[in-house]
């Protein structure tokens, strides 16, 4: 798990730099007019609301508890109501909370794309992997008692289920929900719009592009 994120860090740097550049442009644009004294209402009201003195400290206090509770629900699904789906949703909700308090762009930079994709893809692979390992032992899909681990039969079943819940379902749900959040926060891609902005200058070039 750790070596996966480590190896892909270099891969992610390129994408996050592009996002950095995108995110940094907006504040620098707003700083410019404020220095020259031309404050339209959007710039003036922008900073006190985005960095609320009430919301940010409260989220700092609440978020660790909520995240711990999400972990509890995930890990304790066998003994009380809950499980991977609910716990994953709570942990994703903590990320939403942080994003609303500290800004979505800042959270997007803090939480690299590698983490989100790794959670979603890794969870699916772990779930499928555990199922397929038991099939290679000659059993059915997810026949936990055939897992090749040195435990008693009942413990193999219990810990196999917990592994599927924690590493599989909770990872998938939290990763996909975080991804949906960031995707919806960014909206429809203006990639077509990139050629659209350069439309007037590069109309002759853009013609064959379409």
């Amino acid at each position, binding site marked *: 798990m750790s070596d996966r994120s480590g190896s892909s860090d270099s891969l992610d740097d390129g994408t996050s730099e592009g996002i950095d550049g995108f995110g940094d442009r907006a504040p620098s644009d707003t700083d410019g007019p404020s220095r020259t004294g031309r404050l339209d209402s959007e710039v003036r009201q922008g900073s006190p*609301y985005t960095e609320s003195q009430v919301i940010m400290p*409260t989220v700092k206090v609440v978020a660790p508890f909520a995240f711990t509770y999400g972990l509890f629900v995930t890990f304790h699904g066998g003994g009380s109501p*809950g499980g991977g789906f609910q716990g994953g949703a*709570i942990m994703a909700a903590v990320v939403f909370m942080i994003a609303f308090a500290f*800004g979505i762009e800042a959270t997007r930079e803090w939480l690299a794309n590698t983490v989100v994709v790794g959670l979603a893809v890794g969870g699916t692979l772990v779930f499928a992997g555990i199922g397929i390992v038991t099939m290679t032992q000659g059993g059915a899909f997810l026949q936990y008692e055939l897992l090749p681990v040195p435990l008693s039969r009942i413990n193999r079943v219990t810990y196999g289920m917990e592994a599927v819940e924690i590493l599989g379902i909770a990872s998938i749900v939290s990763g996909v929900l975080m991804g949906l959040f960031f995707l919806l926060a960014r909206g429809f891609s203006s990639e077509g719009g990139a050629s659209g902005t350069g439309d007037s200058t590069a109309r002759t070039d853009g013609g064959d592009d379409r």
Partner: protein
Amino acid sequence: MSFVETTVVAGYTVSDFLLAAAAGFVVLAVGMLYRAVKGPTMQDRVLAVNVLGTNTVVILAMLGAALSEPTFLDIALIYALLNFLMAVAISKFTVERGGVL
């Protein structure tokens, strides 16, 4: 049988009292719904949804006690933690219609 089912006051068990109180809180929630629907401003709605969430925490806790199911408190705890998220999200959304998110 826990004490909420065995202790009898005036012909009713403690469980009955707790359920009746929970029903009373649901009636209060219906009343608060008027404020959430009518508005007139968005701040009214934010407050209404916050009150509704806190109300639900109380209702769930009372249900857990009345039905002698302590694990129901887990659900109340989720609402206690995430209701804050809903209030923050809606209140920040009402500023410039999500322009400051």
